[in-house]
């Protein structure tokens, strides 16, 4: 036990004296939260559009007003001819052009049918699709009002409600995502690099010759990083709750318990990496390339797993971050309890045990 604390103390000196790394460790999650929270956003707000109104009658004006009044759109220019559409999109002046044909009102009133053309910049498909949805919704709304004047016999009023995230805030997805990403990086990269560093400096030999058990060496190395990870997790949670207004609907204790299991599996993965390489750079590259990319792609925080091809969905199952992401999203946003995430929780435990056993075995093999 005394050996253990001597080691933890020494490891803590290393961490606390390496200001640059410490700054990166603490700074990275903060910057990521701020960037995702304020700068990067897939919400559509004040998109620049152009209007080409051949009708210029009462309904076309009214619909234009409704579009402009929404917080999604901002009309930057009124075009005069079809020829100007291409130029307007090409120059990036507008992301979408709304075209009203001749006699918009007249056709609607007399033939009960009229056309509205939307021309969008398809080079950004997601944005285009979102814009079209918004215009559709506004038009539908407008139509209902017009129809009510005329009064049709049957109408279906669609009522939508977005549960758990009524304002559709992006933060609800990326906060759990950033947590998963940052914990994975810190735990895996820092552990593997710090163990490999001992090897590179030749200190590992001294430690292995000492009466301290080799596994005790490795585990006591992990302890300060568990502490650091929990600290960083707390920073992210505080920022999310107080700065971005993301709620923690479920149990905080459960959130920490699940996180701890994830941290342990990430540490074990770092240990595994440290057993296969002797160079800090290789360890760092494996951690970055081998873990950060899959974590971003397959955890479900950037790309929905449901819409991936089946083989990729299978692959996503072996990414621990996916299970963790789902668990903390359920706990934080939906406020679910242990019974709802039991499968994910057990899978994470499985990963932790699997990586631990594998790395311990590998470590012993290396010793001989």
């Amino acid at each position, binding site marked *: 036990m005394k050996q253990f604390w*001597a080691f933890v103390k020494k490891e803590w000196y290393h961490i606390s004296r390496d200001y640059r790394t410490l700054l990166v460790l603490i700074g990275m999650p903060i910057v990521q939260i701020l960037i995702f929270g304020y700068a990067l956003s897939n919400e559509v707000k004040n998109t620049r559009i152009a209007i080409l109104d051949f009708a210029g009658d009462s309904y076309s004006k009214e619909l234009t007003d409704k579009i402009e009044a929404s917080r999604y759109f901002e009309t930057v220019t009124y075009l005069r001819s079809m020829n100007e559409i291409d130029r307007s999109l090409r120059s990036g002046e507008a992301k979408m052009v709304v075209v009203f044909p001749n006699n918009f009102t007249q056709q609607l009133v007399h033939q009960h049918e009229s056309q509205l053309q939307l021309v969008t910049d398809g080079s950004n498909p997601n944005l285009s699709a979102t814009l079209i949805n918004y215009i559709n919704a506004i038009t539908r709304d407008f139509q209902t009002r017009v129809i009510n004047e005329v009064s049709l016999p049957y109408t279906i009023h669609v009522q939508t409600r977005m549960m758990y995230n009524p304002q559709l805030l992006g933060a609800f997805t990326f906060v759990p995502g950033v947590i998963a990403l940052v914990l994975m990086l810190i735990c895996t990269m820092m552990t593997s690099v710090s163990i490999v560093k001992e090897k590179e400096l030749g200190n590992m030999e001294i430690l292995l010759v000492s009466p301290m058990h080799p596994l005790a060496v490795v585990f006591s190395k992990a302890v300060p990083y568990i502490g650091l990870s929990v600290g960083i997790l707390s920073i992210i949670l505080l920022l999310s709750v107080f700065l971005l207004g993301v709620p923690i609907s479920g149990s905080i204790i459960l959130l920490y318990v699940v996180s701890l299991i994830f941290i342990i599996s990430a540490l074990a993965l770092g240990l595994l990496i440290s057993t296969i390489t002797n160079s800090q750079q290789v360890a760092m590259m494996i951690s970055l390339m081998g873990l950060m990319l899959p974590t971003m792609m397959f955890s479900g925080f950037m790309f929905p797993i449901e819409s991936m091809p089946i083989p990729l969905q299978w692959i996503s199952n072996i990414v621990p971050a996916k299970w963790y992401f789902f668990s903390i999203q359920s706990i934080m946003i939906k406020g679910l309890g242990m019974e709802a995430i039991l499968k994910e929780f057990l899978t994470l435990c499985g990963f932790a045990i699997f990586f631990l056993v594998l790395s311990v075995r590998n470590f012993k093999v290396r010793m001989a």
Partner: protein
Amino acid sequence: MFSIEVESLTKKFGSFTAVNSITFTVKSGEIFGFLGANGAGKTTAMRMLCGLSRPTSGQASVAGFDVYRQAEEIKQRIGYMSQKFSLYADLTVLENIEFYGGIYGLTRGEIKDRGEELIERLDLRGEEEIMVAELPLGWKQKLAFSIAIMHRPSIVFLDEPTGGVDPLTRRQFWELIYEAAATGITIFVTTHYMDEAEYCDRVAIMVDGNIRALDAPEKLKRDMGLATMERVFYSLAREATRGD
């Protein structure tokens, strides 16, 4: 009373025989030198004795314990210092002392007393709080050696401990080794500096995994009719076929 007894010790890596059936004994309190070119197998032999590497075949006991079955007992009784530098550069002198004392299971009181004594002996008074990175290489090595014997081992293994320092600093380092040997600690040292070979009680010269000569430096020189250990070494190592 032998401190180290080795018989037909062999280490193979695949088809490559790094150490080929070596046999020797080291007496308690002796300064035993292990000489050889790079790749001669001296570090591999030492690693087997320290429990860092498992022998392929043969027998070896260190401090009376078997290297196969009693590695833990051996670890309690040996000190080790490698050619690669072994102190933590971002820890102070005192923190290094506390750390190594801690992992060797010394009590707080022992660490304090022996640490004081060590700082006094190395003339590091007033420098306890500076980072090891700022010490000159010679001092680092002296400090590393002193820390390696802080837990009072019965044997200390030194793997090319004086790499990269000038002959004068090496001489000072050897004074520490003599002091340690005088307290009864057995010194097992590998080196390729021939001036260091002269300081040893006995030396074993390894060539291509085999021990080609083993005796006191004086006796080796006399038997071979050569003036210096350097000549003795070259006349034996000339036949070497491997190296790096």
